[in-house]
Structure formats: C-alpha cells, structure tokens
C-alpha cells in the first residue's frame, strides 16, 4: 500500500482508538487512574497525529514536485512533438522531391538504355536478314553446276581434239592418194617409153618402105615427140607428187606435235581448273560455314539483349514502389498538417490510427514485392489473394 494511503488509514484508526478509550474505559476504571490513562492516550495520539501531519506535509511537497516535473515533461514532450511535426512537415516534401528525382533519373536512364538496346536488336536483326540473303546467294549447288559446265567445255575441247585427229587421218589418207598418183605417173612414163619404142620401130619400118612409108614416118615422128612430152609430163607429175608428199609429211609431223601439245595443254588446263574449282568450293563451303556461325552468334547476341530488356522491367516496378512511398508520405503529411493545426489551436489531441494507415497503405500497393515486404522482416511468401509474378491468367 502506498505511504500516503497508509496515512489516510492511520489517522482515522488513531482517532477511533482515542474515542474508544474516552467512551469505554471510564466505565471500567473510576477515578484518577482513568484520567491519567486518558491523558496518556491523548498525548500519544497527539504525538502520533503531529508526526503524521509532518509526514503528510512532506509527501505533499514531494507530490507537488512530481506534478511539476510531470508538467515540465509534458511541456517538453509537447514542444518536442511540435518540433518533430515541423521537422516532418519540412523534410518530407524534400524527401519526396528527391524520390521523384530518383524516379525521373531512373526512368530516363532505363528508357535511354531500352531505346539503345532496342536499336541494337533491330540492327542485329537487319544484319541477320542481310546475312541470310548473302547465304542464300552462295549456293554450293551453283558451284557444282558451274563445274559441270566446265566439264562439258572440256568434253567439247576433247571432241575438237578428236576432230583434229580425224584431220590427220585424212591427211595420211591423202598421202596414200599421193602414192597412187605417183604410181600412175610411173605408169604414164612407162606408157610413154613403150610408145616411143613403138614409134621408133614404126619409123624404121617406114624407112624400109621407102617413098610409100614417108607419110607413116611423119606420123611415127609425131608419136615419138608425143611420147617424149608424155614422159616429161610423167616426170613432172612424179616430182610434184614427191614435193606434195614431203609437204604432207611435214604437215603430219607438225600436226602430230601440235596434237600432242594440245593434249598436254588440255590435261594441264583440266588439272588447273579442277584445282581452282576445288579451291573455290572449299572457300565457298568455309564462307557458308562462317556465315552460319555468324548468324548463330548474332541470334545469341540478339537473344541476350532481349533478355536485358526483360530484366529492365525492374525499373517499372521500382518506379511504382517509389511512387507509392512518395504518395503515402504525402498523405501522411497532409494528415499531420490538419492534426498540427488542431493540436496548435488546442481543440483536440493528435489522433492517428496506425493500423488504419497501414491498411490504407496496403490498398495502394501495385506489386507483389510491396505485399511481401509490408510486414516487418523479410517475408517472401505470396499472399493467397495475389497472383505470382510472370503468371498468365485467362478469363
């Protein structure tokens, strides 16, 4: 029991004891002893009362001191509260402006990044389309077709070579004809010689016939001259044929050498062109391979950049969360401004329902993260009434 309360109880008890001794004891004790006892009781009661009064006075002083301290404390609290309100009302708008600045900077930077990445994706897509077009124009089948054309050309050249061989055969056959002509020229010379012998015999016989054979002798002489001219013609033919044969043999030798050289050149050209075509094929294959690899790398880069764009979605959420914080601080500031005016005018005390404020704040959340982080600590459980991030719901 507190001390002040014990005093309050002790005073009436003491007075009651004194009264009891005054009223009841005289009926049992008569005379002086009774008066002495009454005086003693009264003295004790007086001493006890004085002590109690002093004690009560001391407690009263202490109570007044406590009350003064409490008053001063309340004044200090009130003053501090006013200062705190002032600080809040002055600082929050500044914080809000800073938050807005952060949002603007973040939004602008992410928008700029996003634009750059989008342009990169477009450039890569365009480059891939061009590469595909180039790849399409490099057709190994076309090279195969060109190779076939070259082969056909070689076959035609070989057939031309065969035609040249046929020409040489014709020339050789002409040599045979020249031999025949040579034989025929020999036959002409032989006939001319026999004719000459016959004409000589005819002349002898004509001379033996005398005057009667004179005309025959003239004929025999003409035949001898004719045979002589035939023999000359035969010799000339033989000479010409000989020259012709020599020329044709020379042509044959020359043609043979040309043919051999052509064969060598043809074979060499075939080997060279085959090597060139093979080299071209190899380069084309390598080019196609490198092009495909480049396309694959481009596709991978494009995919990575698109993933970066996906990751940049964080800014949208961050902006919304900061926006909600800013809005919430604004609301609280407006509420405190009204309360401050009411408080300053002394109409009523500041009244804020913290739970109501928290509940209202929850209604303004737009992201899963805000709901997750609303409670103290680091809760990562999805509220039952929220869909998961990245989920797709059809109605």
């Amino acid at each position, binding site marked *: 029991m507190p001390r002040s309360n014990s005093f309050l109880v002790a005073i009436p008890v003491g007075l009651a004891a004194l009264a009891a001794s005054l009223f009841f004891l005289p009926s049992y004790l008569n005379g002086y002893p009774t008066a002495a006892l009454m005086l003693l009781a009264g003295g004790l009661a007086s001493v006890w009362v004085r002590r109690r009064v002093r004690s009560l006075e001391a407690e009263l002083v202490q109570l007044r001191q406590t009350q003064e301290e409490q008053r001063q404390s309340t004044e200090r609290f009130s003053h501090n509260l006013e200062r705190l309100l002032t600080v809040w009302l002055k600082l929050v708008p500044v914080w809000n402006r800073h938050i807005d600045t952060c949002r603007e900077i973040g939004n602008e930077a992410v928008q700029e990044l996003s634009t750059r990445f989008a342009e990169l994706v477009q450039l890569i897509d365009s480059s891939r389309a061009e590469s595909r077009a180039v790849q399409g124009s490099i057709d190994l089948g076309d090279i195969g077709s060109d190779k076939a054309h070259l082969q056909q050309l070689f076959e035609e050249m070989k057939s031309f070579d065969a035609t040249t061989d046929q020409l040489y055969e014709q020339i050789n056959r002409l040599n045979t004809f020249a031999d025949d002509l040579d034989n025929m020229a020999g036959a002409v010379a032989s006939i001319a010689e026999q004719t000459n012998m016959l004409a000589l015999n005819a002349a002898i016989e004509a001379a033996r016939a005398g005057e009667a054979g004179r005309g025959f002798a003239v004929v025999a002489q003409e035949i001898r001259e004719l045979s002589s001219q035939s023999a000359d013609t035969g010799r000339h033919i033989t000479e010409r044929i000989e020259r012709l044969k020599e020329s044709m043999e020379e042509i044959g030798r020359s043609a043979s050498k040309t043919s051999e050289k052509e064969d060598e050149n043809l074979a060499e050209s075939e080997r060279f062109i085959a090597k060139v075509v093979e080299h071209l094929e190899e380069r084309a294959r390598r080019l196609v391979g490198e092009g495909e690899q480049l396309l694959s790398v481009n596709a991978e880069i494009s995919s990575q950049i698109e993933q970066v764009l996906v*990751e940049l*979605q964080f800014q949208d959420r961050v902006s919304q969360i900061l926006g909600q914080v800013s809005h919430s601080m604004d609301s609280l500031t407006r509420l405190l401004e009204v309360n401050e005016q009411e408080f300053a005018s002394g109409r009523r005390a500041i009244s804020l329902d913290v739970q109501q404020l928290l509940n209202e704040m929850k209604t303004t959340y*737009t*992201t899963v993260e805000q709901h997750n982080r609303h409670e103290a600590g680091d809760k990562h459980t999805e509220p039952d*009434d929220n*869909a998961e991030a*990245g989920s*797709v719901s*059809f*109605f």
Partner: protein
Amino acid sequence: MDKTIMVVDDSASIRQLVSIALKGAGYKVIEARDGLDALSKLTGDKIHLVICDVNMPNMDGISFVKELKLNPRYKFTPVIMLTTEAGRDKMAEGKAAGAKAWVVKPFQPAQMLDAVAKLIS
C-alpha cells in the same frame, strides 16, 4: 495480312520490350503511353488485340478498357492486361471491364506471345 496490336503502357521500356517481341513475331504495333493517348489512336482501323497496363497517369488501364468496350468498332477486341498488379480483386475488376487475360510483370516475352496467339487466333 499482318495483324495489328495496340500496346498501352506509361513505361517506354516496357512498350519497347513488348513491341520488339510482337514485331519479331510478325505483328504490326501501335504504341500509346496511357489510356487517353490510346483512345486518341482508335481511328477506326482494325485492331486485333490490345495489351494494356493498369496503373497509368491520365487514364488508367481499367477505365480505358471500359471505354474501349463502349466503342462498337472495338467491342469484341480482346484485351490482355499486362501489369505489376497481382491482387485478385484488381484482376476481378479487369475481368469485369472486359479483359480476356491478365499477365503479371515481370514477364517473359514468350509467355506474352503465347497469350497473344491464343486470343488472336
């Protein structure tokens, strides 16, 4: 003929991400930065689908969808809500306004393209 899709979002980076994905899939894209801007771009031309954010300045996504559904030309145009909002109550609002699907950000373009393909075909 290329199908046309309207993308409504106040975040330029989200509009770009969605546009890249849609253009890559062969769609034509019309972009709008909020509900009012989107309404001004409804010129009567055929729009096969709308992808719309919820929280936007000037006019929010739910209000825009309601306005869209009042236009006889676009009454049956399917709408996908693409938003950070994940609350079932908000989803119910979107459904009541006339949306056909609800995609919660952050999203993967492939998921969105699947949803588009399901609604547009």
